[in-house]
C-alpha cells in the first residue's frame, strides 16, 4: 500500500477544498484510511504540496483522420519540435499537431490522465481507434459525429419516429465504440456538399428541408432517451461568423431544457458592433449560461502563436481558408457521413480580431459563475495547442498577469473588451472542478476525477508555486491507476491507457434498414463499419471500459 501523506487535497467531487489529508493507494485504487495494522510499502511526504485527481480533457482533437491530415500538412511545424526516442518513449514530434506518442507523454507530463477526442466520424472510427491506440499514458474516449450523415437526415426528413432515431444513435455509439454524440454545424456539413455556404439554425437544408434546430432537437432527445451521461455535444452553426451569438443563444434554446453541451463557445460568442463589425458578445452568452442550468460549455480559448485548426465543419473551414497561415488548407467531403477542414492558423496578439478572440474566451471563463458547467479547453489545437494549458490557468488565476498580457494585445481590441474590469481570479478548487471533477461528472466517469475511496488512483501532485503556469506545467508526481508515471514533469514510466465507451440499449432491428442503405448506396458494408469490442485492444488500447446507460422511455 502507498501512503501519500500531508498533501493539501483539492477534491471538489467530495467537497474537499485544500484540507491536509493522507491518501492511501492499493491495487490501482484509492482506498479508505486503513487500520493501524495495514502494511505501508511506500510513503511519500507531500507537505506543502497541492494534490488533485488526474486532469481530464473532454474536448481535444488528439486523433482521427483530420488530425492526421493536419500532421501531414505541417512538416515545417514539426521540424521546430522534434522528439527523440528516449527512455522507453518513442520518437515523434510535438507542438500544433503532435504525433500520437508525444501527445500521450505531454498530456501526462501536465497531469492529465484522460483525453476525449470530440469528433470521430463513424465511418472513420476504426482509423481513429488505431490512432488513439498509439496514444500512451492517458485513458481515451471519442464522441461520434452525427447530424450531417445522410442516413440520419433521410430519417429526419421522412418524419421517422424518435424511437428509430434513438436506435440509430444507439447503434452508432455502439458500432463506433464512442463515449458520446457530437453534432457539428448541424446539417451544415451535408448542406455544403449541395453547395450551400451557410446554414443558420432555422434555415432549411437545401435537399432534406430540415433545419439545424430539428437536428439538434432530435439528437439531444436521442442522447437523453438512451441515457448517455454526456449531453449532446454541440458545435453550433455559424462558427467564427461575426454576429453568431444570436445563433448560439438560439441553439441553447433549441434544446428546450434537455441537457446540451456547447463546445468551444468562444468561437460562437461574436457580435457585429464597432467599426470592424466584430465585437464581443461574451457577456450575453455568459448570462445565458448562468441562467440555463441544462447547458454546459467548454471555452476553446485562443492563445497567440502558430497552430492549426481542424474541424468536421467543412463548410466553415472552407470559408476560413483565406486566413490560412501558412497558406495551405484541406477540405474534404467524407463518405455520405461528414466532412472535415484543416486550416493552419497563426493567432497574432496585435491583430484586432485575434486579440478580441483571446479576450472573449477569458471573459467567458470569468463571467460564467458555475465552474461545474464550463470546462478548460483550447479546443486543441484549434485555439492553441494543449501544451498551453498551464499558461491559460495562470491567466485565470492571476489578475495582474492577465492584465499585463492585456496591455500587450492590439490596443483597440483591449479597449473594446471589458476584461480589465473583471476582477475574478480562479481558485485552485475551481481549477480542480473545471479540469477534473466537472468533466468526470459530465462524462459519467464515476471513479475518475476525484480522490474518494474507490476511485482510480489517478493522482497529481504539484508544488505550490505562486507562478501558476510553472506549477501546472510540471507536476512533481503523476500517478496513473496507482503507478508513478511522471516525476518532476517528465515521464518515468510508460503505460498504456484504456478506452472508455458507452454501451446503450437499443433495438438492433435498426440494422435492417441500415444494411439495406449501406448495400444500396455505400462502398463499404455496414458490418465492416462496426468495430467489435475485441478490436479495441488490437487497435492498441490496454482495455475497453464499457459504461452502461440507463435508458429513459422515449
Amino acid at each position, binding site marked *: 500500500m502507498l501512503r501519500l501523506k500531508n498533501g493539501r487535497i483539492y477534491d471538489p467531487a467530495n467537497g474537499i477544498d485544500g484540507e491536509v489529508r493522507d491518501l492511501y493507494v492499493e491495487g490501482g485504487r484509492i482506498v479508505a484510511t486503513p487500520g493501524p495494522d495495514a502494511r505501508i510499502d511506500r510513503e511519500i511526504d507531500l507537505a506543502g504540496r497541492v494534490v488533485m485527481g488526474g486532469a481530464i480533457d473532454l474536448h481535444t482533437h488528439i486523433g482521427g483522420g483530420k488530425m492526421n491530415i493536419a500532421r501531414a500538412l505541417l512538416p515545417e511545424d514539426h521540424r521546430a519540435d*522534434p522528439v527523440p526516442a528516449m527512455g522507453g518513449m518513442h520518437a515523434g514530434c510535438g507542438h500544433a499537431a503532435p504525433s500520437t506518442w508525444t501527445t500521450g507523454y505531454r498530456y501526462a507530463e501536465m497531469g492529465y490522465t484522460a483525453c476525449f477526442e470530440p469528433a470521430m466520424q463513424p465511418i472513420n472510427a476504426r482509423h481513429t481507434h488505431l490512432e488513439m491506440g498509439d496514444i500512451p499514458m492517458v485513458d481515451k474516449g471519442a464522441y461520434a459525429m452525427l447530424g450531417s450523415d445522410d442516413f440520419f437526415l433521410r430519417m429526419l426528413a421522412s418524419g421517422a419516429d424518435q424511437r428509430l432515431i434513438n436506435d440509430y444513435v444507439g447503434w452508432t455509439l455502439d458500432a463506433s465504440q464512442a463515449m458520446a454524440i457530437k453534432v457539428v454545424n448541424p446539417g451544415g456539413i451535408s448542406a455544403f456538399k449541395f453547395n450551400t455556404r451557410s446554414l443558420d439554425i432555422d434555415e432549411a437544408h437545401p435537399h432534406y428541408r430540415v433545419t439545424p434546430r430539428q437536428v439538434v432537437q432530435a439528437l439531444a432527445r436521442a442522447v437523453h432517451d438512451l441515457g448517455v451521461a454526456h449531453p449532446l455535444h454541440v458545435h453550433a452553426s455559424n462558427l467564427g461568423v461575426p454576429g453568431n451569438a444570436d445563433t448560439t443563444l438560439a441553439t441553447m434554446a433549441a434544446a428546450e431544457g434537455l441537457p446540451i453541451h456547447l463546445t468551444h463557445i468562444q468561437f460562437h460568442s461574436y457580435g457585429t458592433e464597432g467599426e470592424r463589425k466584430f465585437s464581443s458578445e461574451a457577456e450575453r452568452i455568459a448570462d445565458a449560461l448562468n441562467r440555463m442550468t441544462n447547458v454546459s460549455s467548454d471555452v476553446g480559448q485562443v492563445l497567440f502563436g502558430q497552430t492549426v485548426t481542424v474541424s468536421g465543419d467543412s463548410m466553415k473551414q472552407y470559408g476560413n481558408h483565406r486566413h490560412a497561415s501558412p497558406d495551405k488548407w484541406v477540405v474534404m467531403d467524407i*463518405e455520405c457521413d461528414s466532412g472535415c477542414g484543416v486550416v493552419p492558423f497563426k493567432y497574432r496578439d496585435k491583430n484586432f480580431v485575434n486579440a478580441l478572440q483571446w479576450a472573449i474566451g477569458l471573459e467567458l471563463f470569468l463571467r460564467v459563475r458555475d465552474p461545474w458547467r464550463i470546462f478548460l479547453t483550447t479546443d486543441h489545437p484549434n485555439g492553441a495547442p494543449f501544451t498551453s494549458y498551464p499558461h491559460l490557468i495562470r491567466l485565470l488565476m492571476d489578475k495582474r498577469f492577465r492584465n499585463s498580457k492585456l496591455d500587450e494585445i492590439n490596443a483597440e481590441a483591449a479597449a473594446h473588451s471589458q476584461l480589465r474590469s473583471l476582477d475574478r481570479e480562479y481558485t485552485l478548487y475551481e481549477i480542480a472542478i473545471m479540469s477534473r471533477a466537472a468533466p468526470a461528472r459530465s462524462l459519467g466517469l464515476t471513479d475518475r476525477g476525484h480522490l474518494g475511496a474507490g476511485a482510480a488512483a489517478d493522482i497529481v501532485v504539484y508544488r505550490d508555486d505562486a507562478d501558476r503556469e510553472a506549477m501546472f506545467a510540471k507536476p512533481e508526481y503523476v500517478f496513473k491507476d496507482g503507478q508513478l508515471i511522471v516525476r518532476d514533469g517528465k515521464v518515468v514510466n510508460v503505460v498504456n491507457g484504456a478506452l472508455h465507451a458507452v454501451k446503450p440499449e437499443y433495438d438492433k432491428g435498426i440494422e435492417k434498414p441500415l444494411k439495406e442503405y449501406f448495400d444500396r448506396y455505400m*462502398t463499404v458494408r455496414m458490418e*465492416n463499419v462496426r468495430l467489435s469490442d475485441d478490436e479495441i485492444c*488490437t487497435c492498441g488500447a490496454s482495455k475497453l471500459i464499457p459504461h452502461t446507460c440507463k435508458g429513459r422511455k422515449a
Partner: protein
Amino acid sequence: MLCDDLEVSRAEEGVRLERPACPRASRLFAVPDQGQALIAGLPVSLDEACRSAAILLSGARRPLIGGLGCDVTGHRAALLLAEKLGGVVDHMHGAAQFRNWQAFQNGGWMTTTLSEVRNRADLIVLAGTDASRYPRFFERCIAPASQFGELTRKIVVLGGPAASIPVMDGVSVSSLAVDADRLGELFAVMRARLAGTSTDVAADVAGVPAAQVEALLADMRAARYGVLVWNAAELDFPHADLTIESAVNLVKALNQATRWSGLPLGGNDGDTSAAQTCTWQTGYPLRTAYEIAGPRYEPLLFGTDRLLKTGEVDALLWISAFDPDRTPPAADCPSVVLGRADMRFARAPDVFIPVAVPGVQHAGFLHRMDAVVALPLTAPAPSSLPGVAQVLAIIQGEVNHAAA
C-alpha cells in the same frame, strides 16, 4: 479500393475468389500456404533466418526499411524496428505517393471519398488515367444509382482514348487527347479563365483546341458535384507534383461557384496505411529517418531508388506481403526480404522470410485509398506462416538481445 464485398470459398489449397471477377483480387487469394525461409538461397529455420536478419540489420549504419507492402499491424512493427535501428522508411510506391504529398504539403487540397462519388458525382474528369488499374472503380462508384435521385453522369477522359471505360446506363463518356505532362498547363489556363483572364491569343491549350477547352470549362462550371480524378502512379514524368498542384488549384477555384473535389487514386500494397501509420506516429508521411534528435523528414532525399543508388543506406529490409512480383529493387547492400511465399528472385537476397498475406492468411487492418475507411482484415485461409508483424517482432527481439 479494398472491396469488402468479395465472396471466397475454401479450395483444396487455401481459398479461391468466387465473385466478383477482379483480376487483382484473384491474384491476392491465389497464395501458397507454406513457405521456406532461406539464407543465401539455402533453407533454414524461421529462427535462424530472423537471427541472421537481426545481425545483418543491426550491423548497418542506416538501413532502409522499404517496400512496406503489409497492413497496419505490419507497419507498426516496421516503424518500431526502424526506430530501434535508426533506419529510414519509404514505401515501394513512394515515388507516386510523394507526387501527391508534395502537392498536398505545398497548398493542401479539396478531396472526396468513394461513396460521395457514387452518390453525388455528375461530372467525372479523369486526368491522365482511365482508371483501368482499378478494375471495379466504375462498377462500384459510377454505375450505381444515387440516393439523391436521378443523376445524369458524364465522364471526360483527359489523356488517351476512353475505350477501356465500360458502357454504363445513364453515363456518357467522352475524351480529349492531352499528353499527361501537359495537363498542368491545361489546368492552369482553365483556372486563369475562371479568374477572368482572356486566352483569345492562343488557338490551342496543351494541344487542345481553345474552343474545346472553353466547352469543357463550361461543363465543369455547370456540374453540381464534379470530381477530378488522377492517379499519381500514372503521372510518371519529372515534376508531376506540379501537375497535381495545378489540378487541385483548379478544383479549389471551381469551388468558388459550385462544388468540386479531387479524388487521388491509390491504395496499393498497403501504401495508404503505411503513410497514415507513419504520419500519426512521427508526424510525417514516410521518407523519414529515425535520427538521434528525432524523426527527420526528407521527401526529396529519402526515396528508395536514390538511397540505394547513392549508398546512403547500407542495408535493405524489404517487405512485400501482398504481391509476389514486388521484389526488391537491385541493391548493392545486404538485403533481407519478407515476402509472399511464392516470391521468386533473379538474385537471392541474403535472407528471405516467407510471410502470411494480410487479409487472406492473417487478420489486421488496412486503409482504403481515401484513407477515411480502414477495414478489418480477416483470415479466411489461415496458414502456419507468420505475419510481417510477428517476424519483425522476432527480429526486434534479436536486435534488442544483441544490443544488451
